C-alpha cells in the first residue's frame, strides 16, 4: 500500500497528519503496538523537521507485508553537518519552535533510535531526503 502526503511548511498545526494516518493504517493491520510506535515516532520527528526547517515537502509511505519504508523529501536549506545534527541536544530550531516544545535537538536521535534503517541525504541549499525503514516482524529476520 502506498500513501502520499504533501506537508506545508510553518504549519505546526497540521504537522503529524501523515504519521497519524500511517499509524491508523498499521493499527488496522494489527501490527504490534511497539512496532507502530517506532514507525510513527520516527516519522513524526521527520515530519516536524520538514515543517520547522524546510517549508514543508512530500512524504511517501510504502507499507509492505514485512516492512514500512517512508521517504520524506524537502527542498529546504539542507543540513550542513549531518554528524553534528545527529548529536542529541544539537538544534537550530527557531525560538517559536522551541517555545512549543520542539527543537530539543532530539529529533534525529529519536529517528535513529526507532528506525531499523535510517538514511539521510542532504545538500545545503538544495534540500534533504530522509528514508526510514522499520521491519514489521523483526523477530523473524
Amino acid at each position, binding site marked *: 500500500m502506498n500513501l502520499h502526503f504533501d506537508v506545508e511548511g510553518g504549519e*505546526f498545526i497540521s*504537522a*503529524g497528519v501523515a504519521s*497519524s494516518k500511517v499509524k491508523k493504517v498499521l493499527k488496522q493491520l494489527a501490527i504490534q503496538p511497539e512496532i507502530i*510506535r517506532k514507525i*510513527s515516532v520516527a516519522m513524526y520527528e521527520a515530519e516536524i523537521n520538514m515543517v520547522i526547517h524546510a517549508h514543508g515537502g512530500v512524504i511517501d509511505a510504502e507499507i509492505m507485508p514485512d516492512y514500512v519504508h517512508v521517504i520524506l523529501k524537502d527542498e529546504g536549506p539542507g543540513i550542513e553537518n549531518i554528524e553534528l545534527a545527529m548529536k542529541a541536544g544539537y538544534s537550530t530550531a527557531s525560538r517559536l519552535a522551541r517555545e512549543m516544545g*520542539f527543537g530539543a*535537538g*532530539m529529533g534525529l536521535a529519536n529517528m535513529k533510535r526507532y528506525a531499523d534503517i535510517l538514511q539521510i541525504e542532504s545538500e545545503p541549499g538544495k534540500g534533504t531526503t530522509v528514508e526510514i525503514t522499520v521491519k514489521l516482524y523483526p523477530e523473524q529476520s
Partner: protein
Amino acid sequence: MTINDVQEILNATVVTQTPYENNEVLSGFVGDLLSVVMGKAKEQCAWITIQGHINIIAVGTLINVGCIIVTESFKVDDDAVKKANEEDIVIMTTQFSSYEVAALLSKSGLE
C-alpha cells in the same frame, strides 16, 4: 490508577469530552519537550506538561497516552481540545505545578 482517580486527586478540570471513567494510567511522565516525551514516555502514562497546543495531541496519540495533565493553569487551545475529542484523548488542567502533580500522584501510588 484510573483517570477518574487522577482527576479527583488533583481536583483537575477535564476539558475534553472523551469518555475515560475506568481507563487506567500505568505510570507518570513529566516533560515539555515533545521529542523527549516521544522518546521516553511509556504507553498509558499520565503525561504532565505545561504545553497546551495542538501538537500535544499528535504526541499523545503516538505514545498511546493515558491522559494529558496540563499544569500551572496553562490554557489548552480550542483546536487542541477539538482534536483530542476526535482522537479519544483525555486532557485535564490543574493549577498545580508539574512537580506538585507528580508528587501528588506518586504519593497516591502511581509509579
